[in-house]
């Protein structure tokens, strides 16, 4: 038996089954004419037979079943009433179809006999003969419905809802124009024009647009295309476009076919299958964002829920997308393939990549120096490759901080028990990634800070209750990325720092003089000074006075910084900022004289040429006035070489750097531009060198120093304030330089 024969056998069986079902369905309808499922199965029978007959080229069957299908489609859509007469015609049609099928299967090569085609014609006439009046009836019925504001049928229609804003007419937007245009894309099945907010009498401003229009629209156009119709009205109208229910199946199928190689966001998935447009998702996200701003206590609503509420997508689609998302996640998790790699090997690779970056810079230099234009293209593409190798290599060492965070759960529980305090640890941002070498080194400082929070920060349950706080204390660990750094926060809701006591202790220890003029912030930061513990009785956990200074030192060794903020009675927040990696950074190279320096690019705010119009330098009070902004500054040449260079004859540039909220200016001779910097740590010998954190080898073999921006900013501020004090003193004593 050939493949075709086999297929024909299947077709014959299928047709027979479908026709039997059809007969049953028709008989059922006689007693129960409104059963939509039965009507549907009738339609499907004709539809399927038509489809498969077409495949085999049985055109006589296609022609006949097409008519029957059309009539049943009308019935299905409620546009034609099924009555005893129609049922008997359909029963005849069913018998006739069986005969046609038989003929095509037994004598495929002979044309259809005249008597059969005569029956076809007669039945078609009977089937369609009443159609004219039926459509009229249906049309009347539907317009009555829309008059009453009833629901518009959604099965095969897009539902478009246009709520125009008052200014639409004034902006030249005529709703009628858009509907006229819409009609070029498909058929407007039903349309409702409402003006629900139109005031009465004199209050109604006829130049305001009060119109709300709802349209049932039949079209094969995509959601994107339909949305584009109203593109110009976007500002003057709330537009909602709901895909037809019949499209849902298509979308569901597409959703299922979405690649599961990576987890996609819900919105992206629905955009990809065409169920939503980017505008829909953007609006919903805005809505979500606005909600989370107004209702702080309530967690933000899930996006899917908002989308369904806004009537831009149906619930089943959202459900399916979420299911798919979850499946993909699980699949990826189960498939996740890891290779254990010796960390030393990885370190070696990264070192090699570092050398590669340097040699690539050297090559560029030579290409440029000898003006080798044809080599330039090759060098440029190699550069791009080296850059991506660098990023990928560094990414290999990136790990999520979550694991480090969760280790503290146990500690918080144990310590809480020991101290007889009920403390809950909340973790967020655990998916934030940073270099493994940084993670390893941050563990100790974090342990210390959390112990401190548990021991000193959170009060005993009695004290908390007396202060009107819940008995259970909380410690929050949070991590996030910010401008090339990772920020880790440890926040407790304890008593806060006691600045009086810190100060008293600091004065007793001789750290500050009694006549200090420290700000609150500076007082808090005193706890990072050596030999200061505010807890009068040291416990065995923390508070021996060795700690906070070590914490600060460890963090600074990672080129990071730590800050503390506290509100008395409400708690303390410690913020640690760390670079993402210790190996390679994007730097900005500047020069003074023959020396070259690297500033981490993430810390460069702007570069300006020093011209009097934009910035004025005040050498005496030691500040720069940059377009009205007062900045402390350092002349890098002076600072590092300690020789005063006559600056008047040179053209200098100003690099504005920022660290956190603090800004300062570095005055330099040359701006060399961005530079990929492979950090080479400096030896122990250079430990006491102020203002430098490392060095790098340049393409031409020279060494450039990497600046410790934070340290230098502090120096600049000191210069400014000391010269300010000096200035006041000079003024007071009447002396002039």
């Amino acid at each position, binding site marked *: 038996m050939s493949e075709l024969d086999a297929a024909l056998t299947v077709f014959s069986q299928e047709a027979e089954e479908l026709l039997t079902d059809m007969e049953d369905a028709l008989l059922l309808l006689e007693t129960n004419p409104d059963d939509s499922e039965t009507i549907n199965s009738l339609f499907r029978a004709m539809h399927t037979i038509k489809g498969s007959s077409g495949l085999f080229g049985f055109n006589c069957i296609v022609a006949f079943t097409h008519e029957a299908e059309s009539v049943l489609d009308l019935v299905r859509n409620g546009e034609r009433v099924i009555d005893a007469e129609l049922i008997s015609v359909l029963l005849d049609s069913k018998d006739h179809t069986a005969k046609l099928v038989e003929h095509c299967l037994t004598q495929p090569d002979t044309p259809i006999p005249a008597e059969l085609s005569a029956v076809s014609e007669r039945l078609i006439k009977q089937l369609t003969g009443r159609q004219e009046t039926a459509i009229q009836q249906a049309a009347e019925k539907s317009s009555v419905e829309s*008059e009453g504001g009833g629901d518009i049928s959604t099965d095969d229609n897009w539902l478009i809802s246009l709520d125009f804003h008052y200014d639409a007419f004034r902006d030249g937007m*005529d709703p*009628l124009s858009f509907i006229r245009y819409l009609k070029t894309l498909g058929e407007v099945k039903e*349309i409702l024009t409402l*003006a629900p907010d139109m005031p009465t009498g004199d209050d109604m401003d*006829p130049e305001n*647009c009060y119109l709300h229009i709802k349209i049932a629209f039949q079209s094969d156009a995509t959601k994107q295309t339909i949305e584009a119709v109203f593109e110009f009205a976007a500002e003057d109208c709330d537009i909602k476009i709901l895909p037809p229910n019949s499209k849902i199946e298509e979308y569901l199928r597409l959703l299922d076919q979405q690649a599961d190689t990576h987890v996609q966001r819900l919105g992206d998935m629905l955009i990809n299958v065409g169920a939503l447009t980017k505008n829909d998702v953007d609006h919903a996200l805005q809505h979500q964002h606005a909600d989370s701003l107004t209702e702080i206590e309530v967690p933000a609503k899930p996006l899917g829920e908002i989308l369904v509420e806004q009537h831009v997508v149906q619930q089943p689609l959202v459900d399916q997308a979420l299911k798919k998302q979850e499946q993909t996640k699980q699949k990826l998790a189960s498939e996740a393939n890891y290779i254990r790699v010796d960390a030393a090997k990885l370190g070696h690779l990264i070192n090699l990549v570092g050398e590669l970056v340097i040699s690539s810079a050297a090559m560029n230099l030579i290409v440029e120096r000898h003006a080798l234009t044809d080599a330039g293209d090759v060098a440029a593409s190699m550069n791009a490759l080296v850059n991506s190798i660098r990023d990928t290599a560094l990414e290999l060492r990136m790990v999520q901080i979550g694991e480090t965070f969760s280790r503290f759960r146990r500690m918080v529980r144990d310590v809480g028990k020991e101290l007889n305090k009920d403390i809950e640890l909340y973790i967020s941002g655990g998916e934030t990634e940073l270099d493994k070498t940084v993670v390893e080194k941050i563990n100790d400082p974090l342990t210390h800070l959390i112990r401190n929070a548990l021991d000193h920060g959170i009060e005993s349950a009695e004290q908390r209750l007396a202060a009107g706080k819940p008995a259970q204390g909380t410690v929050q660990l949070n991590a996030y990325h910010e401008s090339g750094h990772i920020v880790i926060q440890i926040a407790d809701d304890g008593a806060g720092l006691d600045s009086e006591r810190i100060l008293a202790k600091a004065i007793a220890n001789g750290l500050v003089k009694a006549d200090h003029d420290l700000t609150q912030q500076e007082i808090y930061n005193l706890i990072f000074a050596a030999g200061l513990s505010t807890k009068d009785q040291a416990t065995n956990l923390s508070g021996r006075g060795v700690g906070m200074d070590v914490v600060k030192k460890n963090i600074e060794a990672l080129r990071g910084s730590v800050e503390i903020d506290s509100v008395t009675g409400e708690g303390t927040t410690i913020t640690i900022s760390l670079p993402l990696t210790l190996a390679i950074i994007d730097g900005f190279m500047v020069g003074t004289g023959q020396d070259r320096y690297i500033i981490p690019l993430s810390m460069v705010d702007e570069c300006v040429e020093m011209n009097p119009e934009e910035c004025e330098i005040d050498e005496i009070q030691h500040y720069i006035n940059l377009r009205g902004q007062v900045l402390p500054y350092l002349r890098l040449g002076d600072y590092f070489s300690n020789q005063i260079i006559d600056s008047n004859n040179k053209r200098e540039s100003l690099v504005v750097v920022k660290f956190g909220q603090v800004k300062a200016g570095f005055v330099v001779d040359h701006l060399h531009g961005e530079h990929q910097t492979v950090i080479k740590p400096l030896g122990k010998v250079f430990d006491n060198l102020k203002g430098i954190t490392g060095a790098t080898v340049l393409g031409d073999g020279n060494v450039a120093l990497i600046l410790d921006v934070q340290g230098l900013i502090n120096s600049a501020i000191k210069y400014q304030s000391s010269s300010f004090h000096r200035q006041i003193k000079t003024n007071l004593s009447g002396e002039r330089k």
Partner: protein
Amino acid sequence: MAIEVKQQKNGVIHLAIQDEMTIYSVLEQKQELLKYLKTAKEVQIDLADVTEIDGAGLQLLMFLKQEALAAGIKLSLSQHSKAVVEVFELLHLSNHFGDPIVISADWRTS
């Protein structure tokens, strides 16, 4: 005058709008028409000379209908111009206003 009073008798007023009904004209037309609506018992509006109508004009007709309903006045539209019929058909609004519409044969050919 854009609105002509063709007949006024026993509280029945017969008006004809003889201008476009667009965003440029609705402000004036609304004030004028609302005045008649406040005094009459029955208002008939002849739309034969409405050469052009846009969303604002349509909205004004909907407003008049709403006002008339609220005040218990009988409002009827007649002699719909081609432009008005086109808009009514576009928005399937003929039933909303409920007035018989006579379609001239010569529109189809133009």
